[in-house]
């Protein structure tokens, strides 16, 4: 049976209905929503960023790389110049857990003996199975200065005995590639910061001036950016790097290379800063602030900076790997950092031709570090970009 009510609408029932409605709202989700609405921009970015798995992996791996590079004296068993005679061109040492008899035991290595194959005149390394050398953790080794300050001979890993532990093999002078790669990561990873910092200063300054003043200043700076962006990067780097005097020391060359990378790299950042500044200037909230009588500096600090800080951070994250690649390329060509300085690019220089690669393929390992570092920065940058974009769902 259908019961039918007459539908009558009058103001009285409406008012009471309103109260009922107010009371009947599903309030269980309110605190959660409240949290969203009152969160600061930083919190929002962090929440979105946390969802980006690849970016989290990126940040973890990068943290590890930077940590290890800072404590290279501790993690690398040897110094960068320590040479092992009779171990020139030696392949990576195999760490073993099984003895010849097939029993398991704590990690150990064998020494190598070098012979020359009479037919091909090639060096051949064979395991000398007579003595087992224990692989030890937290052992003592060559004296070094951790973080340039603390003298210490503590090593993360080492061998009990007088044979070398060559995790990545040795180069043609018998130096440990593993230790050299770890030490090299310091210059390679930090040149990214140096170069990007300089581009950042140049880029924000010139981009800011361009966007702020407009007119002739803008035109001039824009043409400069056009020019820089239309010159192929690597040839320009090469030509600039060629101007660095050969007799300069490591530190001087380092700063010169940083400068070279930054001189070419600021243009992209300046363009972004300018574009963003111009767009933000037109935003209603900036107009609102101006109408309320806020001072110029206050508007820049309160409204403009927070808005494009996120863009800058993203751009910087993506610019660091470009700088790392730049240093690697230049040093690889012999135009960047010079030995005895060690960087990934300098190390890769030893793998410049087919003979070297055929003889010592392990010399390509520093290249893997380059790829990993760049890849992780890209993941991180992508994650930051997605997180920083407030208009994305």
């Amino acid at each position: 049976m259908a019961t039918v009510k007459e539908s009558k609408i009058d103001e009285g029932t409406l008012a009471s209905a309103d109260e009922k409605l107010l009371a009947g709202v599903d309030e269980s989700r309110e605190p959660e929503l409240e949290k969203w609405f009152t969160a600061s921009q930083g919190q929002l970015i962090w929440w979105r960023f946390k969802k980006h798995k690849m970016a989290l992996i990126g940040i973890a791996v990068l943290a590890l790389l930077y940590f290890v590079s800072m404590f290279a004296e501790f993690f690398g068993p040897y110094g960068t110049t320590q040479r092992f005679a009779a171990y020139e061109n030696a392949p990576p040492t195999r760490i073993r857990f099984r003895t010849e008899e097939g029993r398991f035991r704590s990690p150990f290595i064998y020494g190598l003996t070098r012979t020359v194959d009479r037919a091909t005149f090639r060096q051949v390394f064979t395991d000398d199975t007579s003595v087992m050398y224990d692989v030890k953790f937290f052992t003592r080794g060559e004296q070094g200065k951790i973080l340039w300050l603390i003298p210490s001979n503590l090593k993360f890993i080492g061998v009990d005995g007088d044979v070398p532990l060559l995790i990545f093999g040795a180069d043609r002078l018998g130096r440990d590639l593993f230790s050299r790669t770890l030490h090299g990561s310091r210059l390679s990873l930090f040149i990214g910061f140096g170069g990007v910092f300089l581009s950042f200063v140049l880029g924000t300054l010139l981009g800011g001036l361009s966007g702020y003043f407009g007119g002739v200043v803008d035109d001039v700076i824009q043409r400069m950016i056009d020019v820089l962006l239309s010159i192929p990067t690597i040839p320009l780097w090469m030509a600039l790097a060629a101007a660095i005097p050969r007799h300069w020391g490591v530190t001087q060359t380092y700063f010169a290379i940083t400068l070279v990378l930054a001189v070419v790299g600021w243009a992209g950042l300046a363009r972004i800063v300018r574009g963003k500044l111009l767009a933000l200037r037109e935003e209603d909230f900036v107009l609102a602030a101006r109408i309320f009588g806020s001072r110029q500096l206050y508007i820049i600090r309160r409204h403009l900076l927070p808005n494009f800080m996120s863009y800058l951070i993203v751009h910087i994250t993506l610019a660091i790997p470009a700088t790392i690649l730049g240093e690697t390329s230049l040093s690889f060509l012999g135009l960047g950092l010079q030995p005895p300085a060690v960087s990934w690019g300098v190390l890769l220089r030893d793998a410049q031709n087919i003979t070297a690669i055929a003889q010592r393929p392990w010399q390509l390992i520093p290249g893997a570090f380059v790829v990993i570092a760049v890849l992780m920065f890209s993941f991180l940058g992508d994650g930051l970009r997605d997180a920083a974009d407030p208009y994305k769902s």
Partner: protein
Amino acid sequence: MLAYIVRRFLIIIPLLVLISIIVFIVIQLPPGDYLTTYISSLRASGVELDEREIEGLIRQYGLDRSVTEQYFIWVGGIVLRGNFGWSFQWQRSVNDVLASRLPMTLAVGLASLFFVWLMAIPIAIISATRQYSLFDYVFTFIGFIGLAMPPFLLALVVLWIVYSTTGVAITGLFSREFAEAPWSFAKVLDLMRNAWVPVVIIGIAGTAGLIRVLRATLLDELRKQYVVTARAKGLAENKLLFKYPIRIAMNPVFSTIGWILPGLISGQVIVAIVLNLQTVGPALMRATLAQDMYLAGSIVLILAFLTVIGTFISDLLLAWLDPRIRYERKN
């Protein structure tokens, strides 16, 4: 359209002037002038130059004049006589050194560009239309690696893999028997056989970059209302994809020439050194190592010039393809 072409062309001229100034500054950068360096290096190797010869050289390069005048002498030579100067290292004119290398550079660069398009366009279309499929994931990952790996490193790895599996060293653009031979049909064939390695290696990074841009653009376009309109008209799915979203998403193919081309040329310089190609790359490296600045500067200038022309062509293509741009620029 004609007005647009003319206006766009007029922008190029100040750009080229600025580029030439920057390159000239770069040429002037090494401490001391190159002539002094050159003379001292000649002296060191036992060659004696008499005063008259030195004075002749100084006058020829206007070294006794101001820097501004030197710039105009240099630029004037290029513009009026097509004379790029003298390479001290090669003991030949820069024009002579580059005569055979430049066309080869251009050929490899263009071939890489076409390789980039040939690979990136279909992959991006499949990736975007089948978002989150296995294909999409695989190529997104490969794309990341392609962007993270500097071309010269890729060249080294390929070199090593091919060498360790087949024992063949894939270097150079020609097989040994054709290297010094005059041009013939057989030589062209030989070039084709050898050239794909550098072309692929140089193109990988650009391909990865373009896939990323195209895929994102196409994903955006696929969500647009006009796609639904076309579907509601009764158009078949493939037909409408190609006529509407893909057609519009192809714009980046042309708008990105501006950065893909310099990227390809940059990458090519180092790859050419690793693979020992007869292009400007190795010449540039030797020139910079020897501080043979006229040659180095000329190479940078020419490469930048080519890039500017490439960007110009890409802008024209874009305006021709997209009526919106034509319209915007008209007003």
